[in-house]
């Protein structure tokens, strides 16, 4: 990895709900280097999006970033910034691209107003300069007839066009980091290809780092240099993309890769991960993946696994790192034995 741009250390974000404390992000540490594109993958409910919101300090009550969480960005401690300093970081230095472009845009303002607003608020431009900037950004993200489009409203654009607008908004201030939370999940595959191509091309040209949150491992394989796998509020594996796909270590990662149908792949029965992510108010003791794991043994119940070093920057939160011979003896996971959602 290059010089770190963003470093998270022991990030805890909890939600204090009526049914208990939801430990949505429970001790997450990772770093994103300058110009690097890092993927974050995992099922819904693993804490991916809450991690992203935490970095921008957009967690609202009853949620709270716990004391002791460390987030360093461009040498600054994000936790120590006051709200106005944080506002400067948001939009100027870190920008976010959300999943649903329709809800990320305000339906009663024109596209030009909304992109221009970023320039007015963060660069102090006047209305005319801001509109010119908006048109320039629309051109940059490949929207035809940008002058005309700037005067249109979000509902007049297709889903793919809207997502281009959202990307344009994110890049107005030339931020150092773009956090893209499932940027293409709501889009068709042909549009997804266009958008990812665009995002990759622009960030390469501008030297922007990208934290790409997705559940689609195909998207990760093509766009990310490094992958972070999250499960139950924790990082369970981290590796260079090629290493992760060739030598997945954590049984959860193995399960995700096996469950993915591949075009041109073998047409065997799909591998499944029985059961579901447990509720964040009640993470299991020991290894949190234990119930769904085909290798689990006594130690996994007794001892919460640390992130083991597998070598070459590859880490895995699984005791198999110390007892690799256990991999030879898979068994039906507990979740399948209970038959709750046996596949």
């Amino acid at each position, binding site marked *: 990895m290059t010089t770190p741009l963003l470093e998270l250390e022991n990030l805890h974000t909890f939600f204090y709900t009526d049914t208990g404390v939801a430990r949505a992000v429970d001790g997450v540490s990772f770093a994103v280097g300058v110009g690097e594109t890092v993927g974050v993958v995992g099922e819904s409910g693993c804490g991916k999006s809450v991690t992203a919101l935490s970095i921008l300090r957009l967690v609202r009550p009853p949620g709270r970033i716990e004391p002791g969480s460390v987030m360093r960005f461009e040498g600054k401690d994000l936790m120590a910034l006051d709200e106005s300093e944080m506002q400067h970081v948001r939009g100027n230095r870190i920008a976010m691209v959300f999943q649903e472009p329709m809800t990320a845009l305000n339906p009663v303002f024109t596209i030009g107003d909304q992109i221009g607003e970023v320039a007015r608020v963060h660069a102090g431009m006047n209305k005319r300069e801001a509109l010119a900037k908006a048109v320039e950004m629309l051109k940059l993200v490949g929207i035809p007839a940008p002058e005309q489009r700037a005067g249109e409203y979000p509902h007049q654009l297709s889903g793919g066009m809207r997502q281009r607008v959202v990307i344009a908004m994110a890049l107005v201030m030339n931020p150092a980091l773009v956090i893209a939370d499932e940027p293409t999940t709501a889009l068709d*595959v042909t549009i997804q290809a266009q958008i990812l191509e665009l995002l990759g091309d622009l960030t390469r040209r501008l030297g922007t780092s990208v934290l790409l949150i997705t559940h689609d491992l195909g998207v990760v394989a093509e766009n990310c240099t490094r992958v972070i796998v999250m499960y139950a509020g924790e990082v369970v594996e981290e590796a260079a993309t090629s290493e992760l796909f060739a030598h997945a270590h954590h049984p959860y990662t193995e399960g995700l890769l096996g469950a993915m149908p591949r075009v041109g792949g073998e047409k065997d*029965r799909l591998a499944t991960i029985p059961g579901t992510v447990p509720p964040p108010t009640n993470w299991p003791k020991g290894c949190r993946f234990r119930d769904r794991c085909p290798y689990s043994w006594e130690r996994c119940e007794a001892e919460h696994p640390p992130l083991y070093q597998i070598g070459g920057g590859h880490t895995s939160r699984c005791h198999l790192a110390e007892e690799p011979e256990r991999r030879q003896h898979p068994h039906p996971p507990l979740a399948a034995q209970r038959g709750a959602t046996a596949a």
Partner: protein
Amino acid sequence: MTAPAHADASPLLSVRDLTKHFPIKRGIFGRAAGAVRAVDGVTFDVAPGETLALVGESGCGKSTTGRAILRLIEPTSGSVQFDGQDVLALDAAELRKLRRRMQIVFQDPFSSLNPRMSIGAIVREGLTIHHLAEGGAADARVHQLLEEVGLRPEYASRYPHEFSGGQRQRVGIARALSVEPSFIVCDEPVSALDVSVQAQVVNLLQDLQRERGLAYLFIAHDLSVVEHIADRVAVMYLGHVVELAPVAKLYGEPIMPYTQALLSAVPAPEPGVKRERILLAGDVPSPANPPSGCVFHPRCQHPARDAACAKIVPPLEEKTPGHWAACIKQPPTTVSWDDQRAAGATNPPEFFLPRAALHRSA
């Protein structure tokens, strides 16, 4: 013309020239000022026990097709034959009877289950409506159905909000199965699910098909799931079926340039393999105002594309046995060169298959 059918089985479902136009109304009298041609002359067959996948981008008319077949939306014209019965001619009572044989599983497991009904009541409703079982026999049947879809029988007394997306989709499947249909329209049944859960539901659908000889119309936009589950695939674009072929042929040698572009856009889950992409210019045109001739021609990358493509509506024709496609520039074609020239053609048909469209390394 013979229909794009499975080679050697008499069809369970035959759809011919199915059309659904939604009128666009203007003014206070609601005069029709045009129509959204959501489904525009769709023809295909589904054989017993077969999975025909219907793929395409949002707005291409695939869901409308599925719903029009079941008459959840009344089609504008065309014909639908199910097991020899003319579905579009049935009155309400006859249609209700037929719904025992044709069921649907919806995309969104959150909005397709009534939150005020217990799981047991949801699965049981079909049994009651069709007088299939009552009292204790119905309870037993509900429990059996829940077990078949991998849910615990005691869940019958619980409510939808207590379940995850994957579990709810299992309830939706159990509900469809309760009346013992022979055909199920699966409308994006796994699109809302995580990949691990998606695999569970795909496996379940395949197991049930094997055990019960079910036929599926599997509507989806995820081409990797479709390759896994389908026997044949129909590709839709702007209300038209533009290609229809057995799954291996479609993925191995896609003929229609739109299918080629669609396949090239699927991400390859192998790092380092940066796929070549056929990036389609622009967006899908509005179905209220579709392009003339071939609906795909404004975005087409076929090197022989010319003025004739904007004039001649390409017939869905059999290019190789069992492989149907609608393109007058991909030989062989029944649209003669003379006819093409009369429509302004300058480029004779010439076979085109870009490497970017292929996923298997040959």
